[in-house]
C-alpha cells in the first residue's frame, strides 16, 4: 500500500496541463462535466487502492 503522492509526480507538467485542456476543447459545459466524470472514474479505477482514493477525496477538498 502506498500513500497518496502530493508531490510533483508528472513529468513535463505543462504538457500534461495542455493535454487536459485540449481534451475539453469544443465541448459544451454538459459534455465537459460528463467527460470529467468519466475521467475521474477511469483514474480512480487505475489507482484502485481505496485508502489512497479516500485520501485523494480529502486532498481535493483543499
Amino acid at each position: 500500500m502506498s500513500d497518496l503522492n502530493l508531490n510533483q509526480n508528472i513529468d513535463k507538467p505543462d504538457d500534461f496541463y495542455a493535454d487536459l485542456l485540449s481534451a475539453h476543447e469544443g465541448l459544451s459545459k454538459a459534455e465537459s462535466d460528463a467527460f470529467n466524470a468519466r475521467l475521474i472514474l477511469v483514474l480512480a479505477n487505475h489507482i484502485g487502492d481505496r485508502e489512497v482514493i479516500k485520501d485523494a477525496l480529502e486532498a481535493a477538498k483543499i
Partner: protein
Amino acid sequence: MLDDRYKLAFEAYPYERNSDQDADTPVRHPVVIMGGGPVGVATALDLGRQGIRAIVLDDHEGVGMGSRAICFAKRSLEIADRYGCGDPMLDKGVVWNVGKVFYEDRKVFEFNLLPEDGHKFPAFLNMQQPYFEQFMIERARELQAEGMPIELRGKNRVDGVVVKDDHVVLTVMTPEGPYTIEVDWLIGADGANSPLRGMMGLEFEGRVFEDNFLIADIKMKGDKSFPTERWFWFEPPFKSGSSTLLHKQPDDVWRIDFQLGWEIDRKEELKEENIRVRLDAMLGPEIEYEMVWSSIYTFQCKRMDRFREGRVIFAGDAAHQVSPFGARGANSGMQDVDNLGWKLGLVVQGKSPESLLDSYDSERVFGAEENIMNSTRSTDFITPKSEISKIFRNAVLNLSEKHAFARPLVNSGRLSVPCVYDGGVLNSSDDLHGGPDRTRPGAPCPDAPVGSGFLMAKLGDDFVVLAINADVPGMLEEAGITARVVSISTEDDSNGALADRYLGDAKSAVYLIRPDQHVATRMGAYDGMKLRSALRRATGQEV
C-alpha cells in the same frame, strides 16, 4: 366492520369460530402472531415444528391479490426447505442467470450471475408472491394434519393491545363480534402499515423516496417468446419512464416496472388504456398480451428503532421497509423469522433467558441496516438525486459499454444475500486457522453437496456440531441444550466444494452451528470446553 382492504388471490384460512370466543375468562396462549403474510405464516411454521403452539391472526381470509414480491433469494428458499416447502417452490419458480443492462437506445452490457455449483437452490427464483405464500400455507395445513400446534385464524383482526410486563392482552374482532385473549408473546408481522406499531405509539422514521413506480404484470399471448432474463433500462428511448425493468415469472407472466417520477396523476396512470400506451411503446405494437395485475407504488427506507418491546416482537415489513430494488423485503423478513424462531422457542421452553431475544433485536437491526444501505444505494443510482450524481451515473453507464471496470459500478439492485452477524453477541471466537472467510462466526452456512444429498438438509432445526475430518466424542450437552453431531469426511466431498467452503487451508474443522444455520464458532479439532462455552453463549446463558 370487517371489510376486506384488498382483493384475495385465493382463500386460505376462512373464518371459523374458535373456542377462545366462548371462554368465560380470556384464554392465555404462548405465542400469537399478528398478520398472516409470508412472515407471519413462516413464524408459525417455525414455532409449530418445535411443538410450540402458534396462532396466526389475520384480518383477511387468504392471500392478497397481486404479485408484489417476485424474486426469492437462495436463503429464503433454504429456510422454506427446512420448513418442508422448498421443493414445490423449486418446481414452480423460474431460474434466471442472465441480466442485460440498457442505456438510452442501446444495450451497454450483459452479465451472467454464474451461479456457484453445489447448492440445492439457485441464487434466485422468480415466482409470484401468492405462490410463495400458498406453498407455506399448504405446508402449515400438512403439519396441522400431523398434529403440530399451528392455527391460522382468518377474519380475526387485532383491534386492541394492552402490553403488560409479562403478557399482552389482545382484543380481536371477528364477523361474530370481538373476543379477548392473553398471550405470553406477541409477534407483530402485520406489514408495512403495521396497525400494531400505531397502537403502541412507536416511531417509524426513515427516508421517503419521491418517486412513483408503475408495475404491470402481463401475460404474453401468441408465439413471440421473450428470454428468461432480467432487463433493466436506464432512460429508455421509448419514454415510458426514466427506468424500466422487465422480469420473468412463472405462467408466461412478465413483470414490468416503470419509473414515473413524483408529480403524477395516479388514477390516470392506472387506467388500462394508459398502461397499454407505455407497454406498447416498450414492447412494440406486434406483441399481444393480457394484463394480469397493475399497481402504482412508492417506497421508503426505514426501520423501527428496536424490534423488541418487552413481550412484543416485530418482524418483516412491520419492522423495516426497503425499496424493492434488490428484493430485500420478503427475503429479509424470512431471515427475521429464521433468527427469531429458535430463540423464541428456547425462551418459551424455559431453556434460555428472555434476554436471548435481545440478540434478535441486535442481529436483525444489523441486517435491516445493511439492507437499507444497499437498497438506498441502488435507489440513488437508479434515480439520481442531484445533477452531479446523475452526471456520474451516466458516466458509469457510458463507460460500462466499453470498459469492464465500470460494470460492477452499475447498480440496478444488489440482490439480497443473507447478512453475516459480524461482531454479534452470540458469536464465539474464530479458531480455525486458514479457515475460509465466508464461514467465519456469524456467517450463514453455504450449502455444499455431501454424498448424494446436500449439507443444508443435515443442519438446521437444532444446534449442530459439524465435524469435518475430525473425531467428536458424541453429542454435546450443556445447560439443558443438546447439539447434534454431523460428521463428514472429505471423502464424501466429490467436487471439493465442502473443503473449499468449510476448510480452506485447514485439514480438519469443527463448527458449532446455530439452528438458523449461522456459524457460532469454529476450530481445527474438537475442544469440548470451547464448544460448551460457545453453546452457552449462543443460547444467551453467558454474556
